[in-house]
């Protein structure tokens, strides 16, 4: 990667750290500690399932909220505050700025998720007293959650390149929710007829398929995940994010800064 993109990414990460974005980890740690102690007392035999379900769902929600709220401001805030002027007055191409900001937030989310995942694994160790081979699925589930963040960040960036921060947040949340039920949308498309079928099929394939990226249930029951699903999901998420970031770049390249 070129050095200007890395410099911008590193600065974006530094901003997130200094703006205390990672403080959410404190809440997360409290939630996990409290949750696992409580679960250890009230559930018999299913402690593991409850801890994994609760933990991974929390990791996913915390991350999505951060991805959307920081993602929509990544570029628009810099335009608003005019910090962008002095950056673009350097030999920085506009696409380098967008890509750098995108990677900066992805790095932030990876670090955040890594720390939260440690919390989940510790809680798991606390209730189950040992980690097993089946717990590898938990790691796969966490990897898929990171892929979701990559897609959500790219979408937030794309929406914020043409709409207001509030509308971008609403759009990104809406797409996240629709994407979570992508399988149902595909099922609906398969059942319907005529124009509805065409429309629903287009919508189903346009929306990111977050359902395929959600293996929390499998992780909770320690079921293995097929190797080709890991490969397919990786390619899918990266291509989807690439398309969204490319869209954001195309819009931003022509934009007159106020």
């Amino acid at each position, binding site marked *: 990667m070129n050095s200007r993109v890395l410099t911008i990414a590193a600065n974006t990460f530094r*901003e997130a750290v200094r703006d205390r974005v990672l403080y959410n980890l404190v809440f997360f740690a409290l939630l996990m500690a409290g949750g696992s102690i409580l679960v250890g007392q009230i559930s018999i035999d299913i402690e593991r399932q409850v801890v994994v379900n609760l933990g991974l769902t929390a990791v996913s929600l915390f991350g999505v909220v951060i991805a959307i709220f920081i993602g929509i401001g990544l570029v628009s805030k810099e335009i608003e505050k005019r*910090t962008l*002027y002095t950056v*673009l007055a*350097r030999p920085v191409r506009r696409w380098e700025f967008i890509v750098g900001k995108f990677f900066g937030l992805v790095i932030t989310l990876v670090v955040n998720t890594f720390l939260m995942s440690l919390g989940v694994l510790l809680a798991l160790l606390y209730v189950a007293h040992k980690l097993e081979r089946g717990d590898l699925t938990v790691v796969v589930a966490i990897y898929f959650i990171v892929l979701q963040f990559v897609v959500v960040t790219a979408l937030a960036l794309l929406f914020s390149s043409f709409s207001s921060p509030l509308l971008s947040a609403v759009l990104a949340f809406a797409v996240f929710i629709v994407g979570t039920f992508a399988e149902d949308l595909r099922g609906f498309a398969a059942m319907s007829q005529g124009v509805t079928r065409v429309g629903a099929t287009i919508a189903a394939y346009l929306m990111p398929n977050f359902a395929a990226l959600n293996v929390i249930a499998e992780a909770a029951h320690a079921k293995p995940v097929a190797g080709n699903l890991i490969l397919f999901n990786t390619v899918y998420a990266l291509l989807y994010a690439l398309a969204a970031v490319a869209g954001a770049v195309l819009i931003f390249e022509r934009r007159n800064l106020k």
Partner: protein
Amino acid sequence: MPAIEILGLEKKYEVGFLRKTEKVALKPFELAVQEGEIFGYLGPNGAGKTTTLKLLMGLIFPTAGSARLLGRHWRDPDVKTEIGFLPEQPYFYDYLTATELLEYYGELSGMDPTAQRLRVPEVLERVGMTAAASTQLRKFSKGMLQRVGIAQAIIHDPKLVILDEPMSGLDPMGRLEVRDIIHSLKDEGKTVFFSTHILSDAETLCDRVAVLNEGELRAIGVVADLTAQVGGKVEVVWQGEKAKPAVEALGAECRTTASLVRAVLPEAKLDAALDAIRQARERLVSVTPVRATLEDYFLQKLGRKPLEEVETR
């Protein structure tokens, strides 16, 4: 080779939602700034100064025309390794310290890391910010931000420095220091192109100036040539009050202090005023030509002062 060549740049905006009307922010014009010059870009607020600078830096796109910077095509991103830019009322990442900010911009400009380590403290000293080197920018005053702004514009030792209102927000001492920095940049052989509406700054600093009004280039030249176009004025001082109404009738501004009357009037009316004083048999004390300033030029050619700040200074 000119440092900046503006070749018919034009910027129009569409305003309104349903019934769109076109607003011209900048009418096409040609302008060349030579290497090693300090060039002042003057005009009242809203004249199109900032629009021009933003066009040059590629922050907005023109509706027509183009430009050349340091002999290269203006859209070539690499030409910016040799250009420093200070935007109007700059705002920077406030979670960074002054040193970190300069390092960030140095890296983006492709500076060598070792050169950069030496350069950052040097530039901070030059703008008088050494004491605040490791303070986060969120704790900075407006004047301090302006100084850091100048520091970031020169961190990578550019050949061409473009400054948008570099003196705004500074106290008189700070303005003097910025003037010194601009002078020293010229001594180093750099080209400085800056916009301002504070005319005294332009008069003391600039080799040449361009005057912009309502998006239109009105004049380019040496300050002395521009002020020479303004009809000269003279100050007449005499003793006695009787001639005052007659002199005032000639369009002079009269002020009485003790027994002396001072009148400033256009040179062409001097004979008539002297006649009036002689007829009243009052004693003439002095007749002095008054040097025209850029402010007179603005008042006469544009029909207004460049801004409010002139009075408050």
